[in-house]
């Protein structure tokens, strides 16, 4: 009985799969009335190749591009593409799909799809949060824009306040909880003119999530990853090899959601997911690489407490921090050096805001599209799983 354990990821699944499928072909005719095994096999191969190619392309991008808004959109694009192909495979093999053991595997996939919907919704909330931060940055820009006004103390104070608002907004939810438990109002400031805005009541509660406080993105991800294991040999042969694309699609789904949660702020993010990486399949290689790269990113000192690994969030954090340093080091009269530096930073922030404004909406639209596709695919699938006449 050929095992699925291949030494190293060098032996491609294709050849392994072929041997199983060729054994099958030698057996008595397939039960598949509407699909001959040859087309089925090439269909599966093509699908796995597609996954491999799309995710390979995603895995070899530069460090700058990885986890950027543009890259996230490419990721979701790749997902949608693979999902469509998978849908077609299911439709072409309806009869097989409705029989055990494939039936159970497909039903599990649809369960995972259901959980995925919540993560899509959480991501949408997260994108809105990022939008709020961007708006805060715009306030900083208004304050620092030297074209409109002269750069006076007032501007810097304003910028400092906006920066502090931003910093608080970008803190993880857990940490802000305690800060807001004391609300008090203070009028008038008896401190020096270069004071900080101490009263946190000036900062309203940030956006709340659309899910209950107990919902956890990490737990949701983990429950998707649970029991996600490569199919056993007998399952593969019993399903004419279809168990493999089901597993592959499930894995792709889980991975993409994991990447979304890693990049975009959401309630109770967590990156440590226990899931078996598909080392035995050649299409698994890009995922291994991507996972490594993303984990590496998360371990960098500056990113450890970040609310999301999205490149642009990192840029926001850095800009905000530089700006804050600059603003804190301001003393009047302004030196030319300071003026130039301020100008440069303003420029940087302006570009960042542009990028965010242009990138967030399309990303949100795409997340909604992913949501819709997953949902429709699931509904469609459940319908034909349920409609096939069961023997009485």
């Amino acid at each position: 009985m050929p095992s699925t354990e291949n030494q190293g990821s060098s032996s491609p699944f294709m050849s392994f799969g072929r041997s199983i499928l060729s054994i099958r072909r030698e057996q008595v005719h397939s039960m598949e009335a509407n699909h001959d095994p040859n087309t089925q096999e090439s269909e599966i191969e093509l699908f796995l190749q597609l996954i491999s190619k799309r995710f390979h392309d995603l895995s070899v991008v530069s460090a700058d591009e990885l986890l950027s808004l543009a890259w996230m959109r490419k990721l979701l694009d790749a997902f949608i593409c693979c999902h469509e192909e998978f849908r077609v495979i299911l439709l072409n093999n309806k009869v097989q799909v409705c029989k055990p053991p494939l039936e159970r595997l497909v039903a599990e996939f649809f369960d995972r799809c259901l959980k995925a919907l919540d993560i899509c919704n959480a991501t949408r909330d997260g994108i809105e949060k990022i939008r709020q931060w961007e708006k805060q940055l715009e306030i900083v820009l208004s304050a620092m824009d030297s074209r409109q006004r002269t750069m006076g103390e007032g501007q810097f104070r304003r910028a400092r306040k906006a920066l502090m608002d931003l910093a608080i907004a970008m803190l993880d939810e857990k940490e802000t909880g305690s800060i807001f438990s004391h609300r008090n109002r203070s009028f008038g400031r008896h401190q020096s003119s270069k004071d900080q805005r101490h009263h946190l009541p000036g900062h309203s509660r940030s956006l709340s999530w659309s899910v209950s406080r107990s919902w956890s993105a990490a737990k949701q991800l983990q429950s998707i990853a649970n029991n996600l294991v490569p199919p056993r040999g007998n399952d593969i042969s019993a399903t004419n090899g279809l168990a493999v694309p089901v597993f592959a699609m499930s894995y792709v789904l889980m991975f993409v959601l994991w990447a979304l949660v890693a990049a975009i702020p959401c309630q109770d993010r967590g990156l440590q997911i226990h899931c078996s990486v598909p080392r035995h399949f050649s299409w698994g290689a890009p995922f291994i690489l991507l996972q490594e790269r993303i984990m590496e990113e998360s371990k960098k000192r500056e990113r450890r407490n970040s609310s999301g690994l999205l490149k642009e969030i990192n840029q926001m954090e850095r800009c905000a921090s530089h700006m804050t340093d600059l603003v804190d080091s301001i003393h009047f009269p302004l030196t030319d050096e300071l003026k130039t530096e301020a100008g440069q930073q303003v420029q940087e922030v302006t570009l960042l805001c542009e990028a965010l404004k242009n990138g967030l909406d399309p990303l949100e639209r795409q997340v909604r599209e992913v949501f819709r596709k997953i949902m429709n695919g699931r509904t469609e699938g459940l319908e034909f799983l349920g409609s096939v006449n069961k023997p009485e």
Partner: protein
Amino acid sequence: MAEHGEEKLLAVARHIAKTLGHNDSTADDILQIFSNFDGRFSRDKLSEKMGDGDPRSCAALEHTLKSLDRQISQYVAADQPIWADSVDAGAFLDAVDELIATLREWHPMTGEKSVAACLDRAEDLLQQAMFRVEDEFRSLMERGGESFELSRPFGPGESAGNYQFDSEDEDEEGGMIGCGDDHQIPIAHPISDYDILIDALPSVTINDLHEIAKRMVAAGFGKECSHVYSSCRREFLEESVSRLGLQKLSIEEIQKMAWCDLEDQIERWTKAATVALRILFPSERRLCDRVFFGFPSAANLSFMEVCRGSTIQLLNFADAVAIGSRSPERLFKVLDVFETLRDLMPEFEAVFSDQYCLLLRNEAITIWRRLGEAIRGIFMELENLIRRDPAKSEVPGGGLHPITRYVMNYLRAACRSRQTLEQVFNESIDDRTSSSSLSVQMAWIMELLESNLEVKSRIYRDPALCSVFMMNNGKYIVQKVKDSELGLLLGDDWIRKHTAKIRQYQVNYQRSSWNKVLAVLKADNTSLAPNPSLNTMRERLKLFNLHFDETCRAQSTWFIFDEQLREELRISVVENLSQVYRNFLGRLQSVPEAGKHPEKLIKYSVEEIGARVNGLFQRGGGGGGK
């Protein structure tokens, strides 16, 4: 020439003021006296800058700024809220206005060093004012609600903080609804009348907020203003919505909920959505428009930020219901959600009418369509259930099968929402079903039901019982159809056709059960011997009695629920039987060997035969319902 003279005059006036005035306020007073004295010495002329490169041109500006600084700083440093006193507030705003105007006026001259320095200080002052004004704005927004609650006139049965809404919050104290924070939330409003306009904040407060917003926008602090506004109102709105009993549930949680719990949530959602779209959101819109009057894009943006979260929460729930299981029992609640969303769509589009809300509008429509799909899916699931219902055990006596009862009552109930269902089925752009109107769907379900029943009927070994079974179920079906909207949907033709089918089953029944019996009696008509002997006749009678007894015994447990049908059937059987039997008896008695008392040969009289048959198809021990 005259101009030059005037300029000189003004310069002298200024000089006098400056020299004689020991401090700024005295100088100010002197200038005031001058301006009162003669129109040429108007304040703005006196403070007007003259010429470039004049170091003293800045003096006027400085002067103005000093005065403004004095006024503004005193307010900025004050402990108590400025807006506690409308006179103070007015004075403060006037000063701010002047500051902004001054800045605007002198801005072109920033090239000049002395002017630039002044403007720097002016900007600084403006920023301090804006910070303070922002605080005031926030506190007005937060406190405005409180005082409103206290001073609001109450309707009958209402009291401060009395929560009219049908909520399960039993731990609310009477009196103010606190939420542990300093401020309370005024949300007491009767929900029976959706036409009431809620003023979320008192008019005076709204006015104050607007006045502040104007200045913040003028000073370039519009974004901050919008941000404070949105944060405060969003909190309020989300609290209000959560107090309507709507829980924040994930899609997965909703799928896993027990149906009765979900039904409950759906009811809450229906109320919450209605209150939100008819009262809360329009109220927020009005508030936004008033506070940001004159700044439509700020108004639109702020409104969107305030309402987005709650709207998404409401839509997410509807979405989750649409995604849910297609179990037929869910139809009525899903219809509720569908209808609510449909009915609220005009309000939705009215309130979210601007460009920022386009995405939301589309979402709402998409979700509404998904609910339609869900409803179609439920009917498909019903079809599956019917198709798959196994023909396992017989219904005793050929009576009504539970599935017939279930399906017909279900469809009857469903068709009470006929208009909505027609909308649902007409909306279908699904190319799986070529024609997707409701009538077609209903006709199809009926066909499936019939096929299923036919399969079930074949379990009965006795073909006569098959027919009785089909009769009973067919009659029930036709009755329910006639008795409801289904009749309109299926049409008269359908009813006629199916009534005819019942008739056919009646005929089949007769044929398969009584023909055999009658055949015995009729046999002699075609016999070889035109005049059968007494013995033959007696034998035939015995056989007849045997068959008759058997048949009656076998059919004694059979049941026909419909009184009319029962009667019809009995009558036709009796008629048939009696005729042939009487005939036979007559011939029997006329056989010469019959003797003087041929009646002794007869076991059953014609009447007795009739009576036996008339006792059939009745539930033993009292008629009984279906």
